[in-house]
């Protein structure tokens, strides 16, 4: 069963060949025995999962089942789950059990899905290797046979590794600068970052509010579509969430791609990209040409400024978003504080890891009197230029295609002492968050036995088209079916 997709498991449950309780127990057993190798879960919520499975079986018996009813999956530990610890990968929230559900959590519950637990992640979603988690690094299921432990990417590294290792068929992720797409690429799965405002952020612990977006991580585009059907939609609790009709994302998966106009941003195919990576991506694009798509080169002249702008805006927002973790109302508080200032400084010094502290410092600096104009305001201007580049490109083409990451999965410890080289991991993904447009990562080949992702970038609210393009690719390729050994 563990090799089946969400769509397939749903059909198994529908046929009555297996109950949700049985299925859930099988996945839980496998999870408990296998995850020691990957550390992809922070919390396994067995008791709640079995209760949800029983409820799902009753829901099905009552004739009220949805596609998701009884299907196991997992949430990134950034989505608040009522009654289940939500740590955000941080010591700061190691003791935090929210009394409320994120809207995304509530949506999956309403659909009858069974959450097995909470997946590992970079602390507060800050990282590209999942090495900054308080709960330890996650190991990529790929590349283990070579004897090296490799990173799964980040920050949704736990979700990506768990899906790749067949511990769950699907898991939620969040993407602020590439945190769904890059781990999806490094773990050989399918991930989608929706348009900003497509999925509610309520109850999703904030890193950088104007960039954060939740999205699906699964093995197939079809499963990602099934997830997005549940995740997307207006939420009155999030005033940045857009009130716009949600299509059935599975309905257009089989549309032919003939005539699809693909643009290749020349800035994303520079000489700096390793030839082997470039070759895999170009091979994938040739598959699209066989499917009837046309290809042309386009330019995103300001793309090179994206990392610099991002590393001002995201830390600036984070510096304020993380102020609430002060030891006063919940979360970590230092032992025996002398006075208020001591409580603040030690709770935060002891509760946050180094990468989080680094970003709070950078963000606070960028917002400081005398620096605000030169950093924050300038970065916002660059952001608008980048957005305009994409708007211009989508006047010429339907989608853009590019690599997701400059390299395949690197070794644990290789980059985590050099923040700048780590930040460059997101060179192809970050501009998309700044523009607020949707993009996917689709398995597109291997380099040295490690997965390579193809990024498909679309105009605002073009998720259905992206999923269609990914699904059609997956009908003629089997990269997404490969299983790590």
């Amino acid at each position, binding site marked *: 069963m563990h090799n089946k997709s969400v769509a397939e498991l749903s059909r198994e449950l529908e046929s009555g060949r297996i109950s949700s309780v049985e299925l859930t127990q099988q996945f839980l057993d496998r999870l408990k025995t296998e995850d020691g190798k990957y550390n992809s879960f922070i919390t396994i919520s067995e008791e709640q999962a079995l209760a949800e499975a029983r409820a799902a079986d009753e829901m099905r018996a009552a004739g009220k089942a949805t596609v998701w009813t009884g299907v196991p999956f997992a949430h990134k530990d950034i989505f608040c789950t009522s009654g289940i610890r939500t740590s955000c990968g941080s010591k700061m929230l190691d003791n935090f059990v929210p009394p*409320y559900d994120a809207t995304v959590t509530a949506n999956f519950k309403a659909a009858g899905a069974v959450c097995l637990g909470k997946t590992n992640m970079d602390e507060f979603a800050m990282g590209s290797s999942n090495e900054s988690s308080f709960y330890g690094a996650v190991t990529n299921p790929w590349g283990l046979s070579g004897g090296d432990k490799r990173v799964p990417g980040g920050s949704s590294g736990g979700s990506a590794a768990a899906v790749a290792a067949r511990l769950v068929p699907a898991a939620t992720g969040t993407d602020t600068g590439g945190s769904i797409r890059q781990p999806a690429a490094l773990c050989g799965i399918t991930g989608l970052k929706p348009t900003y405002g497509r999925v509610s952020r309520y109850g999703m612990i904030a890193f950088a509010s104007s960039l954060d977006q939740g999205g699906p991580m699964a093995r197939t585009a079809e499963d990602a579509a099934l997830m997005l059907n549940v995740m997307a939609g207006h939420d009155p609790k999030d005033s940045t969430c857009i009130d716009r009709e949600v299509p059935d994302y599975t309905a257009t998966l089989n549309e032919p791609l003939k005539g699809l106009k693909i643009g290749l941003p020349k800035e994303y195919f520079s000489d700096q990209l390793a030839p082997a990576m470039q070759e895999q991506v170009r091979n994938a694009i040739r598959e699209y040409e066989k499917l009837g798509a046309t290809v042309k080169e386009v330019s995103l002249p300001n793309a090179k400024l994206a990392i610099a702008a991002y590393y001002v805006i995201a830390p600036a927002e984070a510096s304020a978003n993380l102020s609430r973790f002060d030891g006063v109302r919940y979360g970590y508080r230092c032992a025996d504080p002398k006075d208020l200032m001591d409580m603040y400084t030690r709770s935060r010094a002891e509760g946050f890891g180094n990468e989080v502290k680094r970003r709070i410092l950078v963000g606070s600096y960028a917002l400081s009197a005398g620096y*605000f104009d030169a950093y924050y305001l300038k970065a916002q201007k660059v952001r608008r230029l980048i957005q305009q580049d994409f708007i211009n490109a989508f006047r010429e083409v339907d989608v853009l295609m590019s690599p997701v990451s400059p390299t395949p999965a690197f070794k644990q410890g290789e980059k985590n002492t050099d923040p700048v080289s780590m930040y460059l991991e997101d060179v192809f993904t970050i501009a998309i968050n700044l523009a607020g447009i949707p993009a996917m990562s689709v398995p597109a080949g291997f380099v040295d036995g490690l997965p390579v992702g193809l990024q498909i970038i679309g105009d605002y609210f073009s998720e259905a088209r992206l999923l269609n393009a990914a699904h059609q690719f997956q009908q003629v390729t089997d990269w997404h079916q490969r299983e790590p050994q």
Partner: protein
Amino acid sequence: MQWDIVIGLEIHVQLATQTKIFSGSSTAYGAEPNTQANAVDLAMPGTLPVPNEQAFRYAVMFGLATNAEIGRRSVFERKNYFYPDLPKGYQTTQLAQPIVGPGYVDIDLADGSTKRVRIHHAHLEEDAGKSLHEDYHGMTGIDLNRAGTPLIEVVTEPDMTSAEEAVAFAKKLHSIVTSLGICDGDMSQGSMRFDVNISLKPKGSDTLGTRTETKNLNSFRFMEQAIAHEVERQMDILEDGGVIVQETRLYNGDRDESRSMRTKEEANDYRYFPCPDLLPVEIDDAFIEDARSRLPELPDARRARFKEQYGLNDYDAGILSADAKLAAFFEETVEHGKDAKLAANWIQGEFSARLNAEEKSVAEAPITGAQLGAMVTRIADNTLSSAGAKKVFEALWTGENNDVDAIIEAKGLKQVSDTGALESMVDEVLAGMPDQVTQYQNEEDPKKRKKMLGGFMGPLMKASKGQGNPKLFNEILVRKLGG
């Protein structure tokens, strides 16, 4: 040396919305600590603000009532600082693009002139919670019921030149927001709080001196005292050749003392930036016109109408029109009492005195305008003397009886106005006081005569068992004694 005083005010006005500015929690005052604070107010992880439309409507109404430009694009920013009663670690407020732009208010001065005080802008923001420093044995308690209560902060230009002007402005603003119904105006509950910026400059100089800010004054009286105190403090320093330090000060009204809270150097760098959880709010014409249609009669217009409609003098009209609830009480009284001047006197006299003595607001008064009006009617038609009226008022106030005529009946307060009966009483009393009658008639000084007339009233009232109409007694006396 002669000094000019320069005063600007920042006034926090709590808006009387049912729920908070960014959450659905109640804003009612006085609940058990932390019972009106939900996950959003507590800044639990992942929670998000959702703006309260009514707060915007109230702010726009305020702008329209103060002749201000309305900010068509209203942007919230984060003001970052750590404090235990500020759950998010930042206050959501407005800076560069506030909802209310420049406006003005005209105030009346003691010499009868009016003065225009300009408002620089007014912005929407959320209130913080409260830190409770007592009863926690060396620790501090945090109550977040107030956290997220909507405020408008009104910032004036430094247009006031004395404590009197500053208080007049503050009272006028109080009158406007309570008339609009956008604030309950209850200063004892912190519904309006004042920060006062004060500087001195040599008389006639164009250059402003260094200012200080005295924060969180919550009554007109404290504000007046704090200004007097700070002006004196600055004057002493300047006249000794010292310099004023730009700082924030706290004033203790009970001791008439102030102390420095923080200097400019110690001030926080608040690192303002636009709040990414809240989109800019576009205020369109329809919203503004809707707000305009909700504007009630404002104090200035009401004052003019009271003079015109009820024949009140400027002073009475000013007092009775300033407070919306008092104005409504007055109009209800007049509706049932006809004589507006008498009604005005009773409301400003006995009625206000009792409210003050019992620390009650107009809304909490135990009598209605209709009851007071019924009483005024009985004074006007000579049924009640003023002494009798006081007894009726007392019975109404204590709830002993709420029907004016029944009280008059029960207490035997009906005046005797039958001139025949009164005349015979006068004859009887004068007959028993021949010496005093002679003295009176020999007295030439009209003042003394008037005083001597009073000597007959006591026996007359006694003879009539307190029910004789004093006015008629007076007339009869004067006539019988020969002018």
